[in-house]
């Protein structure tokens, strides 16, 4: 590799975790290069002006779990970070009923009490208990998880510390945690609520991006995961970055460069190069090579362990675990450019219900039926949709008076039993549009343009295997001690100098930035040893 370019560190993939990781490495003084296959950084967190004046959040569309330390450490505010509050939540039914929740807890009580007085009271109890649990788990979200397979006394001590911490939790909090592990979202909701619309309001958090229905055990942890974030300390609340999540990754890119890091787009990495079990650089799609003793993959575990390197060079148990690791993407996006805001019968003329999440999925049965299609290998004939008309919050997202609407679609299984995604693309778009039309009559008349993103598109465009938005399911077997594999959950790989920092590592997806940060902590710690 004579005359090859050389850097201290190469980060493969310019998604948010790659950028966070590169930011920390550059901040520590390493000459760092981010290599991004596409023409723009951001990974799944991008904003694209597909038609003039309309900014589409093609994939990821909201933010909550970004670790606050990252904002401070990488000085993101200086580079334009601005997270707007999603002040309202709208949960319409198909029978004219709806829940329209906002920023005032007393008003929200009365809004739920219209439908169920007991549920209004129960929601306060449940929200508070989840907030306490999230708070209790936070310290473990923000540290390198223990290695459960190690015989090193320091690792064994950490596992013991974890056990003692969990045992020491307030019994109420520990009890709820156990429920999230053992029970489905629906089971927990049945304990608290009587009304189906109220249950479905909560249940959506338990299925987002995951191949499970609200009555499947896995939905408990998926729900908890989505409540681990906050907005200005308000637990479980979400926000919307100015300019979409692409606005956020542009902020990260500016931070990387401000710390002296370099970013190269249209630079897809073919292979990680290593000699005698040590990373020495990367080779690119164009045949060139770049040298570095430190190579970090921000791609998902399948790519990190089976494409970028030869799995034959890795321990068999790791390769087996990665091959068993579940991606099984089930989500799609359909984004609309609209000539106006959809109207809900009875709330004509109001658009503030779109300043936040609008959940179309008014009952547990509705969600289960949507999932039944998924299990049968087809997209939901009546999907669950998580919509947000982001231009009601950020006027820069669309031309004045016009709007942009992001619709997250469940379920859309990556593997279709009797068709393929390129054939089904427009059918999916039509189905989503019809579903919105059911809730908001006249919706179709507003549609100026629609962008359909299938799970196959997510895989092809972003590189996320099988289109899984979290770089792997948020199931117990793939979280914390097991993300992405037991013993390999501390960002290292069997190849010295080769690390992993994608959402497939702890704490996981949802734009936490945690993997990027914690991987940097591990890398910099290893270098100082």
């Amino acid at each position: 590799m004579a005359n090859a370019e050389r850097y201290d560190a190469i980060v493969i993939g310019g998604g948010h975790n790659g950028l966070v990781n590169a930011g920390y490495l550059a901040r520590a003084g390493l000459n760092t290069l981010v290599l991004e296959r596409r023409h723009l950084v951001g990974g799944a967190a991008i904003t694209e002006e597909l038609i003039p004046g309309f900014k589409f959040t093609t994939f990821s569309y909201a933010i909550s779990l970004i670790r606050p330390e990252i904002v401070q450490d990488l000085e993101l505010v200086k580079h334009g970070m601005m997270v707007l509050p999603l002040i309202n939540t709208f949960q319409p039914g198909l029978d004219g009923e709806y829940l329209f929740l906002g920023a005032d807890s007393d008003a929200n009580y009365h809004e739920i009490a219209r439908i169920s007085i007991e549920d209004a009271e129960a929601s306060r109890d449940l929200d508070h208990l989840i907030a306490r649990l999230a708070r209790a788990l936070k310290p473990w979200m923000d540290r390198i998880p223990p290695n459960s397979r190690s015989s090193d006394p320091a690792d064994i001590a950490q596992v013991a510390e974890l056990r003692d911490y969990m045992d020491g939790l307030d019994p109420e909090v520990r009890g709820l945690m156990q429920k999230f592990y053992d029970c489905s979202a629906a089971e927990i909701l049945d304990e608290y609520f009587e009304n189906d619309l109220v249950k479905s309001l909560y249940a959506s958090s338990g299925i987002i991006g995951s191949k499970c229905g609200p009555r499947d055990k896995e939905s408990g942890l998926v729900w908890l995961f989505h409540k681990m974030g906050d907005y200005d300390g308000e637990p479980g609340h979400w926000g919307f970055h100015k300019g979409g999540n692409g606005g956020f990754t542009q902020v990260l890119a500016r931070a990387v460069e401000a710390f002296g890091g370099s970013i190269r787009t249209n630079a897809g990495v073919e292979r990680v190069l290593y000699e005698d079990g040590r990373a020495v650089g990367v080779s690119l799609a164009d045949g060139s090579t770049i040298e570095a003793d430190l190579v970090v993959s921000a791609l998902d575990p399948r790519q990190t362990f089976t494409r970028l390197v030869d799995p034959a060079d890795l321990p068999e148990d790791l390769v087996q675990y990665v091959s068993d690791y579940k991606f099984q993407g089930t989500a799609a996006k359909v984004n609309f450019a609209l000539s106006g805001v959809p109207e809900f019968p009875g709330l004509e003329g109001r658009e503030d219900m779109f300043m936040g999440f609008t959940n179309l999925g008014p009952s547990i049965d509705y969600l289960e039926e949507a999932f039944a299609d998924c299990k049968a290998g087809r997209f939901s004939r009546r999907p669950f949709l998580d919509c947000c008309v982001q231009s009601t919050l950020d006027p820069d997202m669309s031309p004045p008076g016009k709007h942009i609407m992001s619709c997250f679609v469940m379920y859309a299984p990556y593997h279709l039993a009797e068709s393929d995604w390129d054939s089904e693309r427009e059918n999916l778009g039509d189905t989503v549009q019809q579903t919105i039309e059911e809730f908001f009559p006249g919706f179709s008349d507003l549609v100026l343009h629609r962008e359909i993103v299938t799970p196959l598109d997510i895989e092809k465009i972003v590189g996320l295997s099988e289109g899984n938005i979290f770089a792997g399911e948020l199931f117990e077997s793939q979280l914390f001690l097991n993300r992405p594999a037991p013993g390999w959950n501390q960002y290292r790989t069997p190849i010295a100098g080769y690390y992993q920092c994608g959402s497939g590592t702890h704490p996981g997806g949802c734009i936490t930035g945690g993997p990027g940060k914690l991987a940097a902590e591990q890398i910099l710690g290893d270098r100082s040893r």
Partner: protein
Amino acid sequence: MPRMTPFQPRLEPLNHTGVWKHWSGYLVAPQYQYSLNAEYYSVRNAVSVLDTSPLFKYRFTGADAGALLGRAMARDIGGCGVGRAQYTCWCDTRGYVLQDGVVMQVAAGEYWLTAADPSLRHFRNIGREMGLADVSVEDVSNDFGILAVQGPEAHHVISQLTDAADPLKYFGVAQTTIAGCPVTVSRTGYTGDLGYELWIPSADALTVWDALMVAGKGHNITPIGTTALKMVRVEAGLLLMGADFHTSRFAWVDAERETPHELGWGWMFSKLAQDDRDFIGRSAIEAEIAGGTSRWKTVGLGVDWHDYERVYTAAGIVPPRHEIYSESTMSIYRRGGKEWDYAGYASSFLSSSLLRKPIALAKLPLDLCTAGSEVDLEVSVIRQPKNVLARVERMPFFNPSRKTALMSEGGV
């Protein structure tokens, strides 16, 4: 949009300040006129009327209603006979206070309760856990408006509208009609003065309001807002949830929780040794009594007038006395020995115009809780912390005999 109480059509034009706030999601006036003191003195000098409709209201009926309340309430519901009201509190299983409120047995086996926070599910869950077959707990919050008619002239006003109030002893309850409307009247209030509270069906709210205003006209009846109420309740030594304590239900840690004994409600358990009531929190409360494990106590503090005068005068400014009411935490220190020796805090502070001195509700360690104990209360003098002498006083600070006097025998 905030909700409106059934009295809002009458109250709206009375609010000369244009300022409204929210109470449990309802629109209420903090004060109606520019002079807060005028409203405050209407409670002590004439008669005030306050709309307390935003309180949550629950109706317990059925043969097992008493059993449910006996389990739910920390104070013995057996002491609340037919036609009686009772100030009580309810705790969680660990003996921490969830809420306080007034319960009344309006008819045999039928209890009505007011609460500051939603509690329907809480009480129903207790009934379900007990397996009670014959009890119904209903949220009747929207069915009734409540008016508090309080002050030395309160009886003169009420007695023009109904005879039912005449025989009512302190915490007595009667069902009557006013202006042809069914009204439940109780000799209760949050002012520590002579007064009544009226439960009025929402549909009749304006009719009863109008009758009350006609009856009260010659007695200077004055609508008051929530601020004047909060001021007079400090003089009465009555605690306010959200200021002097917080519900255990939404606490994060035990440091935010309080037991009935810590709130000074030990008197609710004076007969605990003689009864075998199986109420929620009992074992924890017994353990607290037996072990003397209360962490603090809630007491009244009288601020030394001379010392209060001194610290401001020394700085060259006038001591703040006019319409001063605060729910901001003020630190309290031990006197003598080392400086700034933290002891506790005041949770409500009032420069009492009636008592001509500042008073406060405070949390202090047990060794400082006896009447006459001296402490330093931190005040801000031109934004600098200064200590003023304060003494633990018996509460209520103000306790007129008219509060409990029998009106049928001439009363005031």
